């Protein structure tokens, strides 16, 4: 017999989606499960990428920052930096800028003198130079930074966390804090300095005031320096001997951007965890689709029997349900990609990060949805195809 039973691809597509069109609410709810799972996966990848992009940008900006700090002696006491250290470091040719801070020991910072001295809020008092904002790329959030008057008068600039701890969110002429037995006028608040978290928790005063009121003696405890980005390692190698030729091992030379690298690595670990959770959500959604498809096969036994009587092959019936399952998942996947991108955009905007969605995320999302849909439809499709046509027609 030369005549063949044949189903055109366009017809296969049409009957593969007929169930979705006929049962819209059910199809929408089933697709919603996939949409949520795919949205979660895309959003996890997108938010991670946006955050990573922001950290990489920061790494690019802060990668050439080095610090030299006092080390500790065997009995735990800090060793002072030589007073000549900053000038010596500034002479290293690739060094572009330097700034120093000096730690004022045993000075507490409180909102008023009524606050018990024990409530330090973990705020340190640091003597700082006018070059600090430029060297650390620190932004003044409110007010202004320490200027020439601050060398004479008790003025302070608070780090971001210090201002928060003290409950200072606006500045006026009367905004003062109580530092080591004396009121200082708060003239500015700095934004977060990601590479120098010690600045965030500090109240900055000028070296002049620190010398006069707290007897600091102009001794710095930490020097920050910007270097030619191509010479960072070379400069780091000579920093110790340059800053303290007599005791180079007493100094700690650090690259603060290492903290950003560590944060990048930590984010990678979390992304893996959340992707795993997203995959579980996708699996659950796939089981939901399989469940709906099994019900669909049971409900449509008569249609299956009719199609077999009209000449449909087993594979045509299987294709009908496989296509329906895959279409359900792909529609859900497409919606999920849209939702995931939207969620990423909102999250990036709220966090102040640049919007970055990896190109492979939507493609992988769609492929994952298709795979889950095909797997979920496999069993119901096989069951439908194996249904004896005479039995199927005896349904009613």
């Amino acid at each position, binding site marked *: *017999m030369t005549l*063949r*039973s044949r189903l055109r691809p366009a*017809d296969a597509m049409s009957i593969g989606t007929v169930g979705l069109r006929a049962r819209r609410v059910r199809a929408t709810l089933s697709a919603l499960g996939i949409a949520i799972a795919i949205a979660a996966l895309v959003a996890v990848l997108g938010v991670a990428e946006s955050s990573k992009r922001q950290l990489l940008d920061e790494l690019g900006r802060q990668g050439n920052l080095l610090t030299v700090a006092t080390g500790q002696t065997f009995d735990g006491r800090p060793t002072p930096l030589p007073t000549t250290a900053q000038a010596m470091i500034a002479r290293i040719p690739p060094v572009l800028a330097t700034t120093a801070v000096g730690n004022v020991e045993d000075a507490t910072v409180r909102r008023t003198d009524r606050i018990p001295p024990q409530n330090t809020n973990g705020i340190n008092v640091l003597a700082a130079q006018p070059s600090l904002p430029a060297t650390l790329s620190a932004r003044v959030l409110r007010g202004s930074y320490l200027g020439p008057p601050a060398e004479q008068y008790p003025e302070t600039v608070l780090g971001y966390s210090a201002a928060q701890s003290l409950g200072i969110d606006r500045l006026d002429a009367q905004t003062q804090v109580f530092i080591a037995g004396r009121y200082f006028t708060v003239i500015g608040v700095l934004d977060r300095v990601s590479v120098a978290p010690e600045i965030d928790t500090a109240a900055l005063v000028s070296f002049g005031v620190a010398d006069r009121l707290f007897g600091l003696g102009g001794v710095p405890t930490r020097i920050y320096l910007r270097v030619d980005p191509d010479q960072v390692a070379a400069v780091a190698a000579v920093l110790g001997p340059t800053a303290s030729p007599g005791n180079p091992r007493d100094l700690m030379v650090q690259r603060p951007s290492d903290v950003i690298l560590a944060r990048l690595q930590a984010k990678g670990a979390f992304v893996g965890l959340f992707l795993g959770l997203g995959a579980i959500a996708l699996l659950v959604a796939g089981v939901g689709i399989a469940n709906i498809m099994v019900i669909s096969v049971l409900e449509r036994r008569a249609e299956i029997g009719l199609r077999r009587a009209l*000449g449909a*092959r087993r594979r045509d019936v299987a294709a009908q349900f496989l296509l329906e399952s895959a279409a359900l998942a792909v529609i859900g996947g497409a919606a999920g990609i849209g939702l995931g991108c939207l969620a990423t955009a909102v999250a990036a905007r709220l966090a102040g990060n640049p919007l970055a969605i990896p190109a492979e995320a939507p493609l992988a999302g769609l492929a994952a949805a298709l795979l889950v849909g095909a797997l979920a439809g496999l069993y119901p499709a096989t069951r439908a195809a194996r249904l*004896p*046509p*005479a039995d199927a*027609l005896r349904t009613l």
Partner: protein
Amino acid sequence: MTAALELHGVAKTYRPPTAVTALSDVDLTVHRGETVAITGASGAGKSTLLSILGTLERPTAGTVRIAGTDTSTMSDPQLSAVRAWHIGFVFQQFFLLDHLTVLDNVATGLMYRGMPAATRREHAARALERVGLADRLRHRPAQLSGGERQRAAIARAVAGRPAVLLADEPTGNLDTANGHQIVRLLATLEDTSLVLVTHNAEVAAAMQRQIQLRDGRIVHDSGAAT
């Protein structure tokens, strides 16, 4: 007169747990253009015989020849092709798809021949005209009366001009007037052999030949029409 359907020594015993013998040693030849009524009590094997004639079920023993070709060794795709090209079915429950128009329901009857949609619709429109539903093409099945639905189902079965039309209680869900209309319509289909299962003696009498089944065996055959 050439044979459209030939059954030789056909038996059908279902697998356990039922293990019912539905047909035993059935020999039957239906000629081209012949109209045959199969009657019998419930459980006599009428529907099983119709399923075997329509290749929806395979016999346990015996041979089934359709349009001269033995179907017993055919694969599933080959049997599907036989149904798509040579056999039309009419069911008691109509089995029209609610979400399609009447025209598309009828056109579905030709879908598995691989025919383009536009050609299918042309054939379907002609078939609907033959059954008197030319003015109902765009309606949904739910908008038709019972008699009209069965006429649409007949149009679907005959749209491809099959050699054999198998009808399982086609008037079972209809009132007498509509039932008569359907029988008249079926009896006037030219070039198509009709095998019709019915409980209704009047409907059976309208066919050229009457066959009675009891316990899976042919107990009466009025003889082939001459």
